[in-house]
């Protein structure tokens, strides 16, 4: 009876409880200035994960940069004119001066290595020193560009309308500052050119800014919407404010704890405030009941205690179920999901503690006359309640038909689920028309592709990569990969060898091929190393020439794109046996691995959540049978939603998969409230028929359920207007899930209970 004493203590010392809550809240608030965000998709998986360790190793072996900003420059009239090229030159010069830019490896017209031949002389140097002025000079430039496969689709598009400046960042370089400086530089240039600033660091910054927007703008708006809807529902500012405070306290506590423990905020945890506001609405059952009870008792203290008596068990167990739904996320492999799960689970527990302390304490501050006024308007027969009764009545009168319709829907949904495509596309997390999406689309259309994967060829002998055998093999593999529709361009050490071969033979296209012996290859590579930037060779071959790195530029960020590349490599290797093995790497590969993790996490999480929720239901109802009955509307809702997701063809991505566990934890609340209140009612009024008891439950706690669902939906509907698609996805998912599961509870539970009453009540005293 410990919980009881907390309620009584709170009612007896309301001021102390409220003061304590406020002090604790202020304490947690002091942690807020330390907030930092983590928008690096890499951190979805722990640094010790195989894919990250492998990628780090590849980056180290081939001296690759982690971060690169790409500046796309487009001119509809073509960029090969002295004016545009002059701009390219000026912009590049300015970019080289920016702090944090790895100036030595910036690729642009004026910095990229060009090996050409003129008569007997080999010319090595930057492609362009000064922008060509005469037509003749321009013709030379055009030829140099379009005859060199290393340039096409990299610094010049096939149609000659687009170029790009690739700006790698030093480790620890501030991507946002550098991108901003680049934007300033291009602002000073006038003319027909359009500029696109793209690349991971830019995307991450935009992402971070959007995350703050969600927390600082959309979450408060959601809070205000809930306040308003609540006020319209209860015409009671006190209740609305109390619930709001309740939610705010839990948000501040849990976010403060998260920040204080040194965790950065990820995409998922940025949604936590909205979730907690929504979960806080569960306390509404307390208000709902309080007003009913007050009318019966007319004594505030007694009403509070009686209310808590009646609702404590469901409120406690729904909180437990919700916490469990989020808690299972702690067992996931994806870090932001884990953190989010822990965060909201903690917040839910805080909310539950507040329900038994803060809320009862607040009740004591309201004037009796006011409560009386409100409680008078609370009539179970009025307004929404009659609709709910009709709904439940349908289930009671035609249980078989209702259930049959449900079965048909489930079958349809399962067909939909079978069509599900698991895919994560990080660029599509940005809305269509957003700068990041537009830049990515333009660059993918014009140049080789923005998503980068690597295929590392590994042999067991030093210098093996220099053999014609290895070279031809890699060349063949490149041609095979380039046949895939998702692959835009591939680059390897072979391309450099072929280029030198051709140049040494007076630019004769016949020699644009792998040389016939190892000495030639070795000497060409040496010549190349003598002339080009060291990084050019380092990026594609390791020091002992045991490994070669094939760059595969993909035209889409779909995780499955890399899957098709790996499949093509395997297939090629099967057809052409070799001693070399091939290992995938790069961000595109990371996305693929992460995508698999998302799927397995979901399966694991769903199973865990199903077990946990079932256990809680069984414990709460003290009955497996009732737990099963309570379970069905829940499963029904989830299957239906995922069916729709499958039919619509929406990618099954991380936010969607996380929702599967959460929705179990949240939607189960309704079943718990309904079943426990029904059984309580039946105990309290023994003479009443089952149908009447069901109708009463649908009208009274049912009203709370419906209000709860509407409030939830109202809060999450705000997210539909958020700047990032995962927010929209989550918003849409929760809105439909809440409304649907409330409907299912009120329609299907009565139908199922009516249909199975013989089995359900067997052995029970009726």
């Amino acid at each position, binding site marked *: 009876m410990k919980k009881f004493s907390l309620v009584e203590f709170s009612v007896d010392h309301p001021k102390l409880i409220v003061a304590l809550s406020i002090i604790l809240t202020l304490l947690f608030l002091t942690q807020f200035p330390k907030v930092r965000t983590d928008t690096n998709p890499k951190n979805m998986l722990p640094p010790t994960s195989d894919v990250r360790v492998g990628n780090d190793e590849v980056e180290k072996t081939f001296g690759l940069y982690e971060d690169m900003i790409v500046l796309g420059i487009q001119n509809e009239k073509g960029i090969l004119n002295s004016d545009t090229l002059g701009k390219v030159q000026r912009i590049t010069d300015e970019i080289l001066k920016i702090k944090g830019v790895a100036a030595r490896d910036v690729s642009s017209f004026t910095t990229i290595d060009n090996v050409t031949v003129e008569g007997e002389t080999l010319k090595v140097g930057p492609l362009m020193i000064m922008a060509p002025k005469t037509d003749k000079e321009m013709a030379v430039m055009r030829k140099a560009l379009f005859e060199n496969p290393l340039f096409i689709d990299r610094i010049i598009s096939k149609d000659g309308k687009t170029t790009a400046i690739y700006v790698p960042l030093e480790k620890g370089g501030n991507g946002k500052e550098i991108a901003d400086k680049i934007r300033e530089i291009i602002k000073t240039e006038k003319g027909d050119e359009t500029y696109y600033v793209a690349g991971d660091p830019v995307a991450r910054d935009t992402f971070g800014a959007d995350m703050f927007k969600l927390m600082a703008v959309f979450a408060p708006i959601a809070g205000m919407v809930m306040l308003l809807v609540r006020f319209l529902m209860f015409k009671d500012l006190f209740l609305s404010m109390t619930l709001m405070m309740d939610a705010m306290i839990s948000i501040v506590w849990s976010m403060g704890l998260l920040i204080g423990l040194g965790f950065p905020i990820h995409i998922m945890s940025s949604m936590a405030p909205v979730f907690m506001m929504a979960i806080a609405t569960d306390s509404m059952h307390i208000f709902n009941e309080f007003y009913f009870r007050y009318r019966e008792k007319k004594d505030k203290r007694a009403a509070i205690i009686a209310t808590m008596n009646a609702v404590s068990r469901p409120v406690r167990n729904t909180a437990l179920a919700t916490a469990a739904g989020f808690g299972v996320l702690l067992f996931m492999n994806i870090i932001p999901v884990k953190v989010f799960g822990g965060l909201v689970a903690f917040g839910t527990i805080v909310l539950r503690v507040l329900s038994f302390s803060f809320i009862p304490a607040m009740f004591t501050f309201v004037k009796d006359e006011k409560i009386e006024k409100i409680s008078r308007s609370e009539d179970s027969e009025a307004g929404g309640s009659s609709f709910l009764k009709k709904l439940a009545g349908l289930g009671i009168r035609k249980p078989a038909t209702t259930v049959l319709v449900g079965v048909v829907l489930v079958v349809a949904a399962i067909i939909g689920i079978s069509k599900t495509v698991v895919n994560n596309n990080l660029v599509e997390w940005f809305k269509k028309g957003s700068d990041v999406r537009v830049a990515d689309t333009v660059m993918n259309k014009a140049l080789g592709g923005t998503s980068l994967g690597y295929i590392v060829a590994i042999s067991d002998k030093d210098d093996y990569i220099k053999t014609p055998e290895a070279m031809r093999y890699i060349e063949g593999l490149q041609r095979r990969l380039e046949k895939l529709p998702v692959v835009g361009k591939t680059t390897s050490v072979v391309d450099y060898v072929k280029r030198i071969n051709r140049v040494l033979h007076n630019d004769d296209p016949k020699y644009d091929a792998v040389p016939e012996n190892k*000495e030639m290859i070795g000497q060409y590579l040496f010549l190349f190393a003598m002339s080009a930037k060291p990084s050019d060779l380092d990026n594609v071959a390791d020091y002992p020439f045991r490994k070669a790195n094939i760059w595969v530029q993909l035209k889409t960020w779909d995780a499955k794109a890399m899957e098709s590349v790996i499949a093509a490599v395997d297939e090629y290797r099967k057809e052409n046996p070799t001693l070399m093995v091939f290992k995938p790497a790069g961000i595109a590969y990371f996305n693929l691995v992460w995508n698999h993790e998302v799927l397995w996490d979901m399966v694991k999480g769903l199973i865990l959540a199903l077990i946990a929720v079932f256990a809680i239901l069984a414990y709460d109802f003290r009955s497996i049978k009732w737990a099963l009955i309570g379970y069905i509307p829940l499963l029904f809702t989830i299957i239906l939603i995922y069916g729709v997701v499958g039919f619509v063809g929406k990618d099954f991505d991380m936010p969607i998969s996380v929702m599967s566990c959460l929705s179990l934890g949240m939607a189960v609340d309704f079943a718990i409230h309904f079943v426990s209140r029904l059984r309580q009612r039946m105990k309290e009024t023994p003479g009443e028929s089952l149908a009447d008891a069901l109708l009463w439950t649908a009208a009274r706690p049912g009203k709370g359920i419906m209000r709860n669902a509407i409030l939830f939906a109202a809060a999450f509907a705000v997210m539909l207007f958020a700047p990032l698609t995962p927010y929209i996805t989550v918003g849409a998912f929760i809105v439909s899930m809440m409304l649907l599961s409330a409907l299912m509870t009120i329609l299907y539970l009565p139908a199922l209970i009516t249909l199975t009453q013989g089995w359900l009540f067997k052995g029970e005293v009726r």
Partner: protein
Amino acid sequence: MKKIFLLAAALITVVFVSGHVHAMTADEIMKKSQAAFLYPGADLKARVMMKLVSKGGQERVREMMMLRKNYGQPGGEQKYFMYFFQPADVRNMTFMVYKYPGKDADRWLFVPAINMVRRIAAQDKRSSFVGSDFTYEDISGRNLEDDTHAVVKDEKIGDCDCTVIKSTPKAAEMEYSYKLSWIDKGTFLPIKEEYYDKKGELYRVFSADEIKDVKGHPTIIKRSMKNLLSGHMTEVSFLKAEYNVGIEDSLFTERYLKQPPKRWIE
């Protein structure tokens, strides 16, 4: 009394000597340094081992015979002939440079696998020498007139008393904004050089790691260049070095580029 006298003598010597060094202008110091560093002897034959070390500790090795002959005064014309032993697949590759003061150098390369000599146009003196952290300019020296030199201070590095000279390129399009050189007051060899980039940050460091006397010429037989940005480093050591070996002019021709005389590459 004797002690005081000695002390006074020592003081006078110090004042005189240091005063003498200070009397030299930065230009003069750099000129003497160039002579000591890049022009000692009438010619030089050195077997050179170059180790390229990546940030991750991977190594690439280049081993070559370097033959150099002076034409005229220090700062004047020089010819270089290089024969590669390592990496194994470039054995027999040769490289020849005619260096002129105040004019772009001429370079030729012999590619044995296709038995072909190609001239290489030097568009960029700052480009890497055989993939190392040394540029062509670092190997053969930079024209002193291309920079303005100024004495910054005196500083001791290890046991060496050095004058620190700041050299600022006159041309704006250089990749570095200035260089600091620590010139040993005794040998005039550069003990350390620091290159500062356009953002004013130190990014390349040269250091003379071992100096030995070879036939009366103090010679840096071990040196390194480290790129602080890429973490890449190159170590160069002279396995053998000899001055005044009597290299004939005819060595520096296309004919010997294709078929270097045995005596010069052993």
